[in-house]
């Protein structure tokens, strides 16, 4: 049941009291014009609760009055709006398509210019008998290779990346926090940033700070052992 607010209860109590006191006096007044029509209406609206008629209440004329009234407390917002609240939208053409086209153009210009001025590496032909020192994986796997330098292959090569990927894929099912406001999800953001930074640092170390024998090397002193 909906709880009836305090002020409404008070009002109804006041109306009830008034009706009772009126009930005692009204017949005396109403009796004179002999139960006129407007008086009936007034009584019907004034008499708030469905009160059983009192025996001494106005005699025969009063028994025909409407003494019932349906009361409903309507709380604000409890009625479903017929339409969802309008969302501020813009036309895809031209607003979105123009932006997409410009982004695509900028990307293409950057790619073509970069490709004109920087050549992709092509070292000498593959040779099984000549292992380069150091041998490095592609840059996005260098974090893994870096981990392999510290841990057992079972841990560094399989367990950590496997758990990482599964954890990443399950992120939406683990993170039950419904909010997407940064201030509500400090922990999630901190955790994600920590892992991203951890990974980036490993990739940078593996790329630039590892030299012959996959030993530590300073890029400014020993040179860079890195090919894209």
């Amino acid at each position, binding site marked *: 049941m909906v709880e009836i607010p305090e002020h409404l209860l008070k009002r109804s109590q006041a109306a009830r009291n008034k009706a009772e006191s009126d009930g005692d006096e009204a017949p005396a007044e109403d009796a004179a014009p002999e139960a006129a029509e407007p008086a009936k209406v007034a009584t019907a609206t004034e008499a708030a609760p469905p009160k059983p008629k009192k025996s001494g209440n106005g005699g025969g004329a009063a028994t025909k009055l409407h003494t019932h009234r349906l009361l409903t407390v309507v709380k604000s917002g409890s009625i479903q709006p017929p339409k969802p609240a309008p*969302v*501020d*939208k*813009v*036309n*895809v*053409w*031209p*607003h*979105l*398509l123009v*932006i*997409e086209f410009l*982004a*695509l153009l900028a*990307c*293409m210009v950057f*790619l*073509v210019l*970069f*490709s*004109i001025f*920087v*050549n*992709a*590496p*092509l*070292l*000498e*032909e*593959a*040779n*099984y008998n000549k*292992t*380069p020192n150091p*041998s490095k*994986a*592609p840059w*996005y*796997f260098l974090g*893994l*290779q870096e981990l*392999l330098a510290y841990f057992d*292959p*079972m841990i560094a*090569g*399989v367990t950590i990346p496997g758990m990482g*990927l599964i954890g*990443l*894929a399950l*992120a*939406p099912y683990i*993170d039950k926090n*419904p*909010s*997407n*406001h940064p201030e509500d*999800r400090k922990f*999630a953001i901190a955790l*994600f940033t920590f892992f991203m930074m951890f990974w980036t640092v490993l990739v940078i170390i593996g790329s630039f700070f590892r030299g012959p024998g996959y030993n530590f090397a300073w890029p400014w002193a020993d040179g860079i052992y890195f090919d894209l």
Partner: protein
Amino acid sequence: MANGNGGLGSKLSDKGKQLTEKVQSSQAWTSIFRPGSIFSKGYSDSPRNRSYVIMNSLVYHLHPVKVKRHGVKVSYTLCLGGLSFFLFIVLTITGIFLMFVYRPTEAQAYPDMQAMMTSVAFGTLVRNMHRWGAHLMVISVFLHMARVFYHGAYKSPREFNWVIGVQLLMLTLLLSFTGYLLPWDQLSLWAVTVGTNMMGYTPVFGREMRFVLLGSTEISTNTLLRWYVLHVIMLPFVAVIFMAIHFWRVRKDGGISGPL
């Protein structure tokens, strides 16, 4: 300034208008540009026509007629997802170009690479674009993922689209990695040796998986063929299917995620 020149100019522009009208009402033109297209006859800019532009074009498969206003802000998405898709298309086109020159065997791969860079018109440029575009795509897919995480855009109802996105990230890495071997230079051979050795440590079926992928116990001409097929057909095929589901889900899940 109403001299002879002005008269000629207005006459020319009248002729131009007539010609445009004639071309635009020709059967060929109307058969190519559907009603509502910005190239169709009598197109004028109005909110109604802007809707028709999308509804009557291929773009409708990708975008709705209207999107949330905050969604078109470059600072919200940084265009990273769209650029990843665009780079995939660039890589497909440049990759097809490279396929005309390249043969995936131990004897021919490296000489073909050299020929591409010395005697094929635009060979070096296209190869460079393919290589740098691939690295760029790995970066943009990765940054797209980070962007989505920081906006909490993976939350209900978009959980599953995030899972598909993680698959797409792995597919991107695999595409890049399989392409790494194909030039058949020292960098390819030994980077892939290191990479596949890591794979061999997988418990239970690590060795078997490595054998299937290499086509032998060590990298050989079999490996080259297998990785070539993976790189040019199988992985792109799977990636396209995943992308189709990814884009479709973006719209089914209510478009781009809400403002912060």
